[in-house]
């Protein structure tokens, strides 16, 4: 049997190519009957030149093995499986067909949602759809402008919505979401909040007086590369997608990359870790772009950032476990905001410093902003407390956004006054 293996594999070696589309690629589901068959598949898996892409890796006989096979290798792999008596079925006949259909569906759906009155804020959207909605908001409201503050590692634009009713470099509030890409409720909430602020200006007393005195800058997708990756590859991706010299692992935790206690406890120096702080502070362009923007502006009074999950409302510090100078005011404001949040649906948020409430974590964004003179620095962890975690059902987006908005508003009103 092994001789046969070697013969077939050498034929496949000759056939391997570098492919750019998925035309003719098939996805097979292989049902192994015993350990021996699992080992055969693991052998197959180790032959890198075949460019097999295992969606479910061979591990135990009871679990199916799903594998995407490039077009040129399909017949040979099937011949191999059949010669070994290994059962399989075809999950996807031609992967490109499936991808084309999916793309078509999304285009059609996007076309249906071209105006803000039909954008479904209670659903999860792709990056393209979100960016289209930002354009819609900017075109619908004269005081809303879409600006680009930089580019991600993979060259995606970092778009910020600027809410300004006039003046020149008015005192400003910063709000970002999605710095950790798997926290989908945050990007979704940010979009609802953007629409809420835009549509309430002129009718809601509080928002109107806020925007008459201050500017608001909102970055709904702080980590677009990671966000796209959660849509197309791995829903649980957290970090950026930057290549790390000397490592096969990808990505830096963007909330350990800020210049605040950088490299200290609560961040990892292992590139394969989810909390890898990166080679140096601000090494991530997604972080540096924000830092530069805020420094150049010079007049930010508040820095607010959205994460999920756990239902927490936190202020500095994370990199050290001592209280900030403004502890009393921040604690009291935090409690008031948590109270506002609770008033809507009874959702409870715990309030405190990052270190006390969640864990010691260095290189975080609100520690940087606070140490750079932005007193009102808060980090929110939105719903839920673990039942769904990152996979919060879409029907909770609107309640989460609405209650969070009340908390943010409370803080913004205090900053204004």
């Amino acid at each position, binding site marked *: 049997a092994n001789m046969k293996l070697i013969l077939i594999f050498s034929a496949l070696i000759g056939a391997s190519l570098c492919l750019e589309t998925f035309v003719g690629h098939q996805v097979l589901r292989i049902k192994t009957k015993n350990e021996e068959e699992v080992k055969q598949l693991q052998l197959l898996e180790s032959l890198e030149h075949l460019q097999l892409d295992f969606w*479910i890796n061979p*591990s*135990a006989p*009871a*679990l*199916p093995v799903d594998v995407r096979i490039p077009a040129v290798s399909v017949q040979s792999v099937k011949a191999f499986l059949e010669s070994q008596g290994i059962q399989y079925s075809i999950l996807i006949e031609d992967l490109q067909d499936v991808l084309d259909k999916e793309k078509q569906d999304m285009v059609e759906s996007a076309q249906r949602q071209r105006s803000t009155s039909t954008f479904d804020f209670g*659903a*999860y959207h792709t990056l393209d759809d979100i960016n289209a909605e930002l354009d819609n908001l900017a075109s619908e409201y004269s005081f809303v402008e879409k600006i680009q503050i930089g580019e991600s590692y993979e060259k995606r634009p970092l778009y910020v919505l600027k809410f300004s009713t006039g003046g020149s470099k008015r005192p400003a509030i910063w709000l970002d979401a999605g710095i950790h890409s798997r926290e*989908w409720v945050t990007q979704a909430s940010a979009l609802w909040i953007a629409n809420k602020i835009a549509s309430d200006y002129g009718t809601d007393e509080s928002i109107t007086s806020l925007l008459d005195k201050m500017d608001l800058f909102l970055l709904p997708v702080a980590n677009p590369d990671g966000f796209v990756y*959660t*849509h197309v590859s791995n*829903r*649980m991706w*957290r970090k950026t997608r930057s290549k790390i010299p000397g490592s096969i692992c990808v990505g830096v*935790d963007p909330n350990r990359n800020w210049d605040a206690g950088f490299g200290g406890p609560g961040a*990892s120096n292992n590139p394969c*870790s*989810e*909390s890898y702080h990166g080679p140096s502070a601000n090494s991530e362009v997604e972080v540096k772009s924000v830092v530069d923007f805020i420094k150049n502006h010079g007049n930010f009074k508040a820095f607010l950032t959205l994460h999920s999950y*756990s239902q927490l409302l936190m202020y500095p510090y994370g990199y050290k476990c001592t209280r900030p100078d403004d502890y009393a005011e921040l604690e009291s404001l935090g409690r008031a905001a948590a109270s506002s949040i609770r008033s809507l649906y009874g959702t409870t948020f715990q309030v405190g410093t990052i270190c006390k409430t*969640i*864990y010691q974590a260095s290189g975080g964004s609100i520690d940087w902003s606070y140490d750079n003179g932005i007193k009102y620095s808060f980090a929110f962890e939105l719903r839920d*407390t*673990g*039942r*769904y*975690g*990152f*996979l*919060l*059902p*879409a029907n*909770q987006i609107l309640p989460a956004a609405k209650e969070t908005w009340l908390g943010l508003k409370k803080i913004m009103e205090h900053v204004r006054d």
Partner: protein
Amino acid sequence: AARAAAVAVGYLRYLRGGPGSGLQLRELRRARRQDIDDVGHKYYLELELEDVLDKDRTVNCTAEVLYHLGSKTSAPDVQLTVQGELRSTEEADKEFYNRIRSLEKELVAENIPDSHGNVPPELEPIHLLAWVASGYVIWQNSTENTKFHLAQVKHVKQVKRNDEDLQFDFVVLLHEMVSQEVLPWEVTLLWHPQRGARVPQS
């Protein structure tokens, strides 16, 4: 203390959970830690729990979680007392049991919940059984420096048996809060409406 509470809840889910009930921590009422020389750290906890399928009802529980000193290989000891009655799920359990037993093809499912947080209603009991299975894994693998939550059921396959138990082979993704890692774990769960759940030792 929140980490110890997560261990206690995991343990309780393993002990008392099933396809018709999903216990969740509503509030950690009180916590105190005791350092015992040469033994380890013991947490005394007062928990308020709710059933995700019946949020109006809560139940109180006292728990003691002992993390053994230095031991990386032994699970924390958990003792708990539930005050009051947990909702009876006899009907739902029986219905689920009969439904699965009468399936012609063994049940297979993936990504529960899906990327958008959806769980089809007929898979909710499987989701809850995954909570039971992951409760066991969480209890067995927790330390004072970890806090695990079930992030997603990546894959589940039913395995038909000759005896009366239902068997489900899970691949679950556990989210560890302190390191932020999401770790895949294989775990097999046996369940019977009267006998409850267990993870067989292999």
